């Protein structure tokens, strides 16, 4: 069994003579250089079809960093890419040598997606891009989840703007060991904050207390792992003994309405909580991420909410106006001119709903009669946005599609392209989180 760290440049160790700084620089440089390469390398490894000769990266890790070695690495990357290409064609033959072990082959199916970018660069069309953003989804129904979820927990989740990231599956994460994780993380934070001093795990001197807790009741299907809430609490510097601790950072890991096939395909050792939201000082965010990465061998990435997803949110939130007042639909576009022009387009909710109903294929009344599950199609979403944009064009003769939709907000919440989300109404929390879980799955490199 080769060591998985060999395929992760961020985990390679360098024997450097120039001390810590040089190593850090080399690592940063390598990471930047190999970002496009090591992802497929990693995917490749996990698939464990082709045994990468462990000598190649090992030799790199043993050597110091110089130009010659960089070139070696680059060519290694290309070699892997080429293998990727040739592999894809093998996979398409019907009698290809597919490994029969179920879990592995499922992982392989998923990892094909991550190779998509590589494959398209090589001019190949992957046949198995199974995971795409859904083109059709259920219209959100108002759900009263206050009886399922602890209202205190719910209050923590809503009315706060969260910065989202995706997380790859956590290795050997146990919902039963949350207390111990809390102790470890607080020790880790204390150690990082006062480098050089010895720190006792769980000691009294910790100024930062970390608590891990389960947000029960958010999970929708039996396969969804329960959401985990992480809170970092601290006492203000000059607080008295009996002053309560203040929450200085909070974050959560969640997975709602995820793809059951994928979850079942994971080996038992992995827990998939792909959606990570956090709020608080940047320093804490990076510390917590670093600890999670170290402890559960996962990686994080910025979760940007794409234009299409924002359009979905706009349409789905407008659809909610039938049940609860969303007040107005507010969208912001940024046009690429000098200086950048922001266009904020606010439509009254009643009128937006009328427009939405007019572009629906099946009017809501009809589906009520047939008692079918109400489904929303991507075409309807597109027509809705086009309607709004053409109304704008008719007045200003400015083409909004030349710019980017950067944010959408209603009384139910707001979403920004940079991956910030705020949910203001607990009734639609689950719906929004399941859409975001889906986006996180798409962004995840494996």
């Amino acid at each position, binding site marked *: 069994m080769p060591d998985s760290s060999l395929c992760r440049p961020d985990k390679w160790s360098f024997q450097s003579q120039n001390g810590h700084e040089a190593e850090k620089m080399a690592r940063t440089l390598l990471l930047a250089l190999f970002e496009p390469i090591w992802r497929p390398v990693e995917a490749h490894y996990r698939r464990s079809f082709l045994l990468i000769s462990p000598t190649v990266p090992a030799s790199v890790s043993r050597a110091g960093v110089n130009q010659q070695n960089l070139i070696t690495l680059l060519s290694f990357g290309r070699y892997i890419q080429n293998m990727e290409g040739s592999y894809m064609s093998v996979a398409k033959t019907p009698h290809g040598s597919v490994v029969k072990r179920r879990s592995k082959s499922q992982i392989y199916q998923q990892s094909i997606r991550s190779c998509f970018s590589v494959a398209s660069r090589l001019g190949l069309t992957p046949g198995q891009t199974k995971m795409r953003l859904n083109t059709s989804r259920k219209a959100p129904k108002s759900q009263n989840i206050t009886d399922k979820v602890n209202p205190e927990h719910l209050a923590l989740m809503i009315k706060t703007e969260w910065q989202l990231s995706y997380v790859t599956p956590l290795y050997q994460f146990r919902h039963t060991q949350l207390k111990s994780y809390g102790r470890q993380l607080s020790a880790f934070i204390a150690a990082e904050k006062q480098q050089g001093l010895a720190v006792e795990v769980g000691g009294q001197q910790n100024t930062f207390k970390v608590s891990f807790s389960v947000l029960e009741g958010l999970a929708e299907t039996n396969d969804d792992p329960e959401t985990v809430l992480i809170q970092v609490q601290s006492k203000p510097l000059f607080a008295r003994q009996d002053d309560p601790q203040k929450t200085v950072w909070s974050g959560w890991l969640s997975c709602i309405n995820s793809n059951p096939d994928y979850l079942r395909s994971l080996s038992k050792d992995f827990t998939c909580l792909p959606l990570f939201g956090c709020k608080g000082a940047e320093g804490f965010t990076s510390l917590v991420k670093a600890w999670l990465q170290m402890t559960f061998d996962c990686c994080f990435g910025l979760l940007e909410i794409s234009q299409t997803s924002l359009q979905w949110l706009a349409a789905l939130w407008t659809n909610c106006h039938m049940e609860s007042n969303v007040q107005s639909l507010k969208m912001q576009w940024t*046009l*690429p*001119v*000098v*200086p*950048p*022009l*922001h*266009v*904020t*387009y*606010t*439509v*009254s909710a009643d*009128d937006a709903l*009328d*427009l939405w*109903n*007019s*572009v629906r294929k099946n009017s809501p009344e009809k589906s009520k009669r047939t008692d079918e599950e109400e489904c929303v199609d991507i075409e309807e979403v597109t027509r809705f946005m086009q*309607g709004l944009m*053409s*109304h*704008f064009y*008719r*007045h*200003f*003769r*400015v*083409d909004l599609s*030349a*710019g980017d939709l950067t944010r959408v907000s209603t009384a139910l919440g707001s979403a920004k392209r940079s991956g910030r989300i705020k949910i203001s109404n607990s009734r639609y929390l689950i719906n929004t989180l399941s859409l975001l879980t889906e986006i996180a799955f798409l962004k995840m490199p494996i």
Partner: protein
Amino acid sequence: MDDSAKRLLQRLVRRIPTQMLRDTLDKWERLTAKQREFVDFTQSKWTITQELLAVCEERELSVKHIAELEMIYVIGNPNQGMWHTFQLVDAEDDAHSLELVQFKEQFKSHLSELKRNVAVKIKKNTDEAIWIRIAWGETFSRPNHLKATYVVHYLQTPYVFVSGLLSKHKPLLLQALTLSTRHQGIKDANLSGQKLTAIRDLLMRQYQHVFPTKYPSPLAERNQSVSNLHIENEQAEASANRHRMAGEAFGNGMLPALQSAVYKLETKFRDLTNETMTERDKPLRCVVKFSSPNILESLRHCASTGIASTPVTPLLSSIPLKGRNYFVITDNAPSASSQMCQTQD
């Protein structure tokens, strides 16, 4: 010095950046050169405040003098706060011969007739602008100098720029202004922004305009024998045309830095592919806000790059043409034409 004077000075020192403090005090001319040297500007704001308080105490300065200092600072830095524009209408015969002394007297007397306990300070700036600072008081309380209203007016022009005005004082100020400038009415000009200079330039047309002409460039002689350049020419022509029309709509060169424009649309939704909405009687109510560090430049760039179709729609070119940045748009006739008009509100 009383409490209000001290508070005003404290607040003022906090507001003025340290590097501008010395110049502002120099312009003020209330302290002697020796006293000004006494203040050490390298120290913290708190220490500077204490030193200034001591010096002012020594000179026996009152809140009136401190208000002067504030005025000097605001005149020097007019691009702060939110400025609203009003337009004077129906000038009387003698409006054009109005002079500063006369205006000053009249304004002060009209305002004090309308409201007791008002402190007014009028100052003429080097660029002929008249700056008025008004501190409003209640019937039984002295003028509150901490929240003063600023009014800027150029004599013989119909525009008045106001910042920091409470709605309860608005009718009083407008009436005093109308009477003392010898006009019969005043109305909201629907133009507001953070930069007073930009608003003023826009209204007073102090930027480079381009006027539509039939022949934008000197007529070229038709002796070009090259024929395969037609495609290039076509592209270049279209591009040049867009640039010209963008310039005609918004002007050339530097444009006044207006930060936003708001349109309230109450027009019907019309789309041939969507019958249900087109047949609907009600208008689609929405609000569109354009914002940018300089919307006129942004919009000009939109038009010249083709993001906005040319010729530029009257809705957008109305911003520089009419000098407004707030519009309410309704359908002209609800059923017949697709013509849109702007209602004056």
